[in-house]
């Protein structure tokens, strides 16, 4: 045990001291921060005014949507069918439809648009609607109180009882009038982002393990080391050491990204931000890791400047669940693949010989990334389900599904299978590894590997 710690320590320290690690640590957050900041910046500078037509069957929101430089609202008195037909010919950007609610207050609306709806427009509408409904609720509560119909209640309870979540579904209307349901942009961006990050991390750190093994083999130090420790200890020490490098990098990215975003936004657009909103991004992240929780869009934001609405959207993301599931699926996905990468490294003599083995190994990962766009369209469908259960694709595909909400049982099943997959590949890989590292100058075929595996 003491020896495996020594190995982990060496693998970790030699890597985090490398220049490439430091460069990646700085470049990563810059890139991620840019992804967040650039749209905000563009949103503040855009001059285009978007026309939104409103059909309000409830009549509660008349004159509530305020025109701004970017968005202008006008109310229609037609019914929704004729409005939809007219929409294609009009110059309107979007059509907001608030259907009459069966119960007292509406909690949903539909936004029709020709293209993907701008996140600012949608957030603004949601904020105005929820604010209005909350006001109405508050009025009703106060009316009850003054009439003495109800017992006095705590302020906290009061606030909680009036809190309202408005669900706005967006529907894309094609040129030919075809309707297509489009999904929440934030979830989609997050899904793809998480999937790519996992894919990238597994690939990057998996091949680091492989290169490490090849380095030990070509420099011929491996035989000295396995005369002190078991080959399995050496392999696991390396895999764990590199995993810790990956986690360190990820943690630094998260922290640095938030620091950069906070810094830049307060410096450039700080005036429009209510105090403490950026720190709220992190501060909000309390509560346990609950990957099964369906992430919805709470709308408890105060209406504020438009730039703030991106933050509102970001704020609505359940970061503990995202980061928690990212860590699990990255860690075990990595562990499973890293063992196989180590086996490849042990079997070959130089990096040039690895191609024939790497392609089949990484094919499931590449497949998962290719089908990502279809899974985003249908995150609950059979393809999404199966690919998020099979261990070789589950780390990537589960990351795509989680922002849309996944039943807790499926998550547990997926995690269990991934764990078993990790144990199985490690067991197989250690057999190939321990034979391979002592073989020099031999071109290895699949037939040969199979022999080592059974030996």
């Amino acid at each position, binding site marked *: 045990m003491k*020896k495996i710690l*020594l*190995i982990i320590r*060496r693998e970790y320290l*030699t890597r985090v001291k490398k220049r490439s690690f430091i460069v990646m640590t700085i470049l990563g957050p810059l890139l991620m921060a840019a992804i967040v900041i650039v749209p905000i910046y563009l949103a503040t500078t855009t001059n285009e005014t978007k026309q939104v037509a409103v059909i309000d069957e409830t009549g509660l929101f008349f004159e509530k949507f305020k025109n701004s430089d970017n968005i202008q609202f006008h109310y229609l008195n037609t019914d929704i069918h004729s409005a939809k037909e007219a929409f294609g010919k009009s110059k309107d950007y979007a059509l907001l439809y608030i259907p009459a609610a069966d119960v007292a207050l509406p909690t949903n609306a539909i936004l029709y648009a020709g293209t993907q709806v701008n996140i600012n427009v949608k957030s603004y509408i949601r904020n105005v609607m929820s604010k209005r409904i909350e006001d109405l609720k508050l009025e009703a509560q106060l009316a009850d109180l003054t009439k003495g119909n109800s017992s006095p209640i705590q302020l906290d309870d009061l606030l909680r009882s009036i809190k309202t979540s408005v669900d706005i579904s967006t529907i894309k209307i094609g040129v030919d009038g075809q309707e297509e349901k489009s999904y929440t942009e934030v979830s989609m961006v997050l899904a793809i982002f998480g999937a790519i990050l996992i894919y990238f991390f597994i690939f990057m750190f998996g091949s680091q393990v492989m290169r490490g093994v090849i*380095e*030990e083999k070509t*420099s*011929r*130090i491996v*035989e*000295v*080391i*396995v*005369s*002190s*420790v*078991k*080959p399995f200890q050496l392999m696991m020490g390396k895999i764990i050491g590199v995993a810790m490098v990956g986690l360190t990098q990820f943690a630094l990215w998260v922290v640095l990204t938030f620091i950069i975003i906070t810094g830049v936004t307060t410096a450039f657009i700080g005036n429009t931000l209510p105090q403490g909103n950026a720190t709220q991004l992190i501060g909000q992240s309390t509560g346990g890791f609950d990957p099964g929780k369906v992430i919805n869009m709470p709308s408890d934001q105060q209406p504020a400047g438009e730039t703030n609405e991106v933050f509102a959207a970001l704020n609505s993301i359940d970061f503990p669940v995202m980061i928690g599931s990212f860590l699990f699926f990255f860690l075990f996905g990595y562990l499973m693949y890293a063992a196989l990468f180590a086996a490849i490294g042990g079997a070959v003599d130089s990096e040039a010989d690895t191609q024939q083995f790497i392609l089949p190994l990484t094919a499931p990962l590449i497949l998962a990334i290719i089908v990502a766009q279809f899974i985003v369209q249908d995150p609950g469908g059979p393809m999404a389900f199966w690919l998020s259960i099979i261990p070789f694709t589950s780390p990537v595909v589960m990351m795509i599904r989680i922002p849309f909400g996944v039943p807790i049982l499926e998550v547990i099943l997926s995690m269990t299978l991934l764990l078993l997959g990790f144990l199985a590949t490690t067991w197989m890989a250690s057999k190939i590894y321990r034979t391979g590292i*002592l073989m*020099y100058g031999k071109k290895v075929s699949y037939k040969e590997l199979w*022999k080592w595996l059974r*030996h």
Partner: protein
Amino acid sequence: MDLFSAAHITKQYAAHRALDDVSIAVPEGSIFGLLGPNGAGKTTLIRIINQIIAPDSGELMFAGKRLQPQDVEQIGYLPEERGLYKKMKVGEQALYLAQLKGLSRREAEKRLNHWFSKFGIMGWWNRKVEELSKGMQQKVQFIVTVIHQPRLLIFDEPFSGFDPINVNLLKEEILNLKATGSTIIFSTHNMASVEELCDHIALINNARKILDGNVKSIKERFSTNTFEVRFNTFDRDLHAILPETYEILQTGMDDTLRVARIRLPEESKPNDLLSLLMPHATIHSLNEIIPSMNDIFIHVVTKKEASE
């Protein structure tokens, strides 16, 4: 007493038997030569002793007990295929390898300081390995092999890659280690160094042990009763003097003296040869021709191959 012994070791790889019922016994405090042509199974045997691989059958004993996993801390191994992490600093790397052998960081540092100054490479402590010459790297490698003061040392072709000066330095160190009580297994093709260093040998060929024992007694066993005589004032043919059972292998001149190599019949003694020659010549010297390990090696290996 034997520090290490292996009994009836067999190791089979898929289509090829690497070791077939091989037994060796290494007496404590001796230098034991493990000889054999390439591919004979020496490295497999050494890896089994180091517990890098396990034998299919057979028993391994270390210091009177069955060989245990923790015994690796009592063994130092310098493999034939050896190297260091190229990008790592010399001192840091030596510390790491010493700690893997069970030394504490402080103890390792203390001993490394001693060895580094002894070999005059203290200035290299913070240099990367790739900046070192091959000979320098070999020195570092030697140091990390012996740093934990193991009871059993295994050197696989230790002299390859060293220049003659460093070969001597290494030989001295090996003899020093022996003097301080270490037991050494020494695998090599270099028969001259075997004669110089080894007390016992085992010769492995085609996965089988074909010869083993004390170096001196092996040489006696392989002596062919051949003698070299130097004499002068010779006027008669040797064939006329010696009976037919005396085989004259070679005759010639050495400055002013005549030299002849003669193989005596089995029951004859050098005195018999002398009494036959004395009436006819003045004898200057008589030496027994003792076969070199090289001769024995070639003789045994080729004979075995011819018979198979």
